[in-house]
């Protein structure tokens, strides 16, 4: 065996780990900065902050329109993730448990709203609705959001279903359970992690969506991301950082829940 000139075995790994550290810094930077600014004691976004305060968070409640927008987005995201879970889980069962030809193609079809430019999906839907004479309301928002959240549910639930052997289901059937009982008592509890992860991703996607909502929202009601967008395009004071900070904290909680439920990596299908 040849053991000629070799670099110390740890050297490439040292470099790699160092590089990863830098990338971690890059990934965290915009998120950390918002949290810092949201606690800043300055009237304008200013760095380093002269002092720390919680007043921007207290100010949130009084900011015009933010509370109704938050409630609208919350209602929308809850409803949409429920719908996406029902539609997506049913479709996943069919995709994983059946063997018809073209399943792979169908799976790609379900994923397509994810990579299709959302702004074009939004415009197409708006044109479609207005051709039918349907005005933009909560309903149109709900339809648009359901469309782009189904992929997350399908991805997570199919991953969960593939991870469990259909033998358990067959066993239940053999022992006399009907298909519905089998699903309710056997399959559902076993794919719970996938449902949770899919539901969380669906919820977050809807809650944070700007591009689809921008076309389909009604004139009267504005979802939270749109309100934040309009605000930061014009004003740069830390109160919008506080809204964002609150949303980030919320996301962190969801990251922890997902990680505990099925592991983020599995949720992303790595």
């Amino acid at each position, binding site marked *: 065996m040849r053991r000629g000139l070799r670099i110390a075995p740890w050297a490439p790994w040292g470099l790699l780990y160092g590089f990863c550290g830098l990338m971690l810094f890059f990934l965290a930077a915009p998120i950390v900065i918002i949290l810092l600014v949201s606690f800043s004691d300055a009237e304008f976004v200013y760095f380093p902050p002269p002092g720390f305060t919680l007043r921007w968070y207290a100010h949130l409640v009084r900011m015009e329109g933010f509370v109704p927008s938050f409630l609208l987005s919350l209602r929308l995201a809850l409803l949409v993730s429920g719908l996406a879970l029902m539609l997506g889980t049913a479709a996943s069962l069919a995709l994983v448990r059946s063997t018809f030809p073209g399943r792979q193609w169908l799976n790609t079809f379900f994923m397509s709203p994810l990579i299709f430019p959302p702004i074009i999906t939004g*415009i197409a839907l708006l044109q479609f609705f207005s*051709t039918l004479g349907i005005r933009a309301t909560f309903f149109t928002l709900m339809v648009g959001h359901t469309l782009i959240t189904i992929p997350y549910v399908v991805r997570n639930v199919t991953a969960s279903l593939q991870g469990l052997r259909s033998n358990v289901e067959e066993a239940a059937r053999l022992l006399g359970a009907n298909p519905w009982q089998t699903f309710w008592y056997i399959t559902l509890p076993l794919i719970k992690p996938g449902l949770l992860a899919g539901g969380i991703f669906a919820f977050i996607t809807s809650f944070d969506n700007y591009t689809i909502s921008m076309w389909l929202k009604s004139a009267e009601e504005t979802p939270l*991301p749109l309100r934040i967008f309009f605000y930061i395009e014009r004003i740069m004071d830390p109160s919008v950082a506080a809204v*964002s900070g609150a949303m980030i904290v919320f996301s962190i909680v969801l990251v922890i829940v997902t990680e505990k439920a099925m592991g983020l*990596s599995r949720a992303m299908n790595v």
Partner: protein
Amino acid sequence: MQRSYAAKTILSSEAELPQLARRSRVRLSGQPYVWLLIPAVLVLLIFFVVPLLTMIRYSFYTHVSGGMMQPDLTLENFQKFFQQELYRRVLIKTLLNALTTTLLALLLGYPVAYVIARGHPLVSRVLLIAVISPLLVGIVIRSYGWMVLLNRQGLVNQALQALGIIASPLRLTGNDVGVIISLLHVFYPFMVLPLASVLQKIERPLEEAAMVLGANRFQVFYRVILPLSIPGIAAGSMLVFLLAAGSFVTPRLIGKNLTQWLLSLVEEQVLTVFNWPFGAAMAVIFIAVVLLLVVVYSRLLESKFAFLLKGKTS
């Protein structure tokens, strides 16, 4: 990937099942679940496929002033797009910016994906969480973070000045540089995740075999790992390119109105000019060009892939 097979503990012998089924006359084969596809497929057909087809039809309609359109089929909208220099320029600029973002994501993503696949389990786990977590923070908020960082008085400029690298603050928002940095941040996970998943599947004995046969680390990487990771490179770069080219929020917030992004022009046509047929035509052209590029790219990679594999066997 670790999976809990509760099934195994319940059924000691899986081979017995078919026999059992035959004896008890329960139908296990067949396609009992296919009908469950219907609701989701219907939703996608009605609210995704039909609207897109409608949009393609509208792109051939004639625009009448006052935001109206007439179903007189015409190619005028497409001619207009290719005749006016502005639209061609913005299209090319959008594609180039998306391409730059993709290349940067690949260069900066490959080492991280490699560490996720091959590094210490704890490091790998931390990295994976760090890469995925930003996806759960909305694009508007992440772009806002970059606005604050890249600002004239932002942290990036302050740091560069403090380090003495630059004398006066750089302009990092309202131009392509800022947009590319933020797009890179927004879509970086979509490069790392497919890459890591492909790298994880490359079996370690292959590397060891190459080492035993006398290859050094770089040869192992260049001749074994890199060729085998091409499917991941393909998937990641196609995803990032598609998503970056199709983005809207980040170019708008970071680029302000100074950087023109093709999809911002589409928005303008529909929302401000009320020229729906032309907006639809722009969207159709955009999708056609992007899809064409993606197909050409995957063909190119496939042939390159074949070449590298051949090189290995010779």
